[in-house]
């Protein structure tokens, strides 16, 4: 059952993929979220 080994490495790759995608989207969303607020306050305070 050599299927076990790829599956295990698949799980690891998948976990890394999830983490990478989540961090990427999370930072995009956070950058948008904070960015919009900061940009607007900065623009408005001039």
């Amino acid at each position, binding site marked *: 059952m050599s299927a076990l080994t790829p599956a295990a490495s698949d799980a690891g790759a998948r976990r890394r993929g*999830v983490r990478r995608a*989540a961090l990427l989207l999370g930072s995009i*969303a956070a950058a948008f979220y904070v960015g919009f*607020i900061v940009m607007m306050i900065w623009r408005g305070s001039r």
Partner: protein
Amino acid sequence: MAHNDHAATAHDHDAHDHKPHGWRRWVYATNHKDIGTMYLVFAGISFFIGGAMAMLIRLELFKPGMQFLDPQFFNSMTTMHALEMIFGAVMPAWTGLANWMIPMQVGAPDMALPRLNNFSFWILPFAFTLLLATLFVPGGGPAGGWTMYPPLMLQGGAAFPMTIFAIHMMGISSILGAINVVVTIMNLRAPGMTLLRMPLFVWTWLITAYLLIAVMPVLAGAVTMLLTDHFFGTTFFTAAGGGDPVMFQHIFWFFGHPEVYILILPAFGVVSEIIPTFSRKPLFGYEAMVYATASIAFLSFIVWAHHMFTVGMPLAGQLFFMLSTMLIAIPTGVKVFNWTATMYRGSLTFEPPMLFALSFLFLFTIGGFSGLMLAIVPADYQYQDTYFVVAHFHYVLVPGAVFAIMAAIYYWLPKWTGNMYDQTLAKWHFWLSTIFVNVLFFPQHFLGLAGMPRRIPDYAVQFTDWNMVSSLGGFAFGLTQLLFPYIVWKCVRGGARIGNRAWEGAHGLEWELPSPPPFHSWTDPPSDALIQRGAAH
């Protein structure tokens, strides 16, 4: 060879599952089905709270003269009704359905980020408690409309900061939910589940999730600016300090128009699942459907100012937004034509999910037509802020989004519970809903064209007749909806057992799992054969 005994293995997994019991199961929930259930229950509660507010509105509007409500309270009812229904009912219902169905449909064991999933749900009850609490603070609830236009919104009392914080919380919840959906779809698809084999519900939700991530921060920015204008002396939206009140409208609708598609795109997905099932025929033009959804999502970013044709935009701006808005009719038309072509030369049966999907098809199209009329700027000068607009967006949101949610629940409830619900009662629910939703909203087209503005607690006497019809339709529609939780509850408690495939023509991975499905959906990824059988297009 593997999939034949899959059900058995899945059951073994289920038996081995150490799922927590009692309140811990829900408060600490990390399972996609439990969280999906909580989202759906939450949406149901909000639907009835928002519905009760609508009943009060229709009660006051039953006849001219002020009978029951103070005008300020009436305004807070229209405001809260919208916030409850949009952020409390429709959006959580879609997130709940996404939680339940996406892992099952893409061949994943669960959502990719289960603890984040728990967090994004549990923000919501607090957000809505905060929002509803505004009704009990001095000055009453927010009364500036869900669009929160300044300077009016800035006149709000204690409810004002509470509403803004509540909206921030809802926004964060939606963003986290959307991230979870994207990560799940991008990473946890079973091997062989290529993007163009995904069911349309998954596709539409993927696109919706991107929209959410892109626009919820814009809303957060806009309401934060309102907050600083009110409390910290900024003048973003005050002309006297160099600001511009119309700027808020631009920012708000840059969020607001994609938001409308956030509410309706998953409905397109659901209808694209249900119509093929009950037509016993693959969806016509699957790829065209995917591209049409993507085009609608793209166009939603460049049409926002059609909500504000009367603010005095330059001619070029008005022309641009008129033309870009009209363009949306093309991908939307493609969708309607594809659904129709799916039924054409099919073999149709009319179980409750199909009935609701057909009602969606007809009535959403009517809402689309009035939307097209609203795009025509000179005519929009007459329609803007009248009951014609109210009729339009209720046609796309009630028989549109809400009926699609009901269709989805009637479609997948047997899968979730393993029991078939009372179809006769569900058909009653359908017929009464479809009749009364039209009695409720169709006359509002007449009222708007005849000159009745929206958001008014009282009206000139010539509008009495159609308002009475609309109110009666509203009360009947409201009462009819009480059938829904009863039918669902009865089904959860028991009913005729069903096999894996609740509907004869159903395709897709979720129907390869047992009903009810195991606690963790696909602990072993589905085989390629199963995926091919599911993606029958």
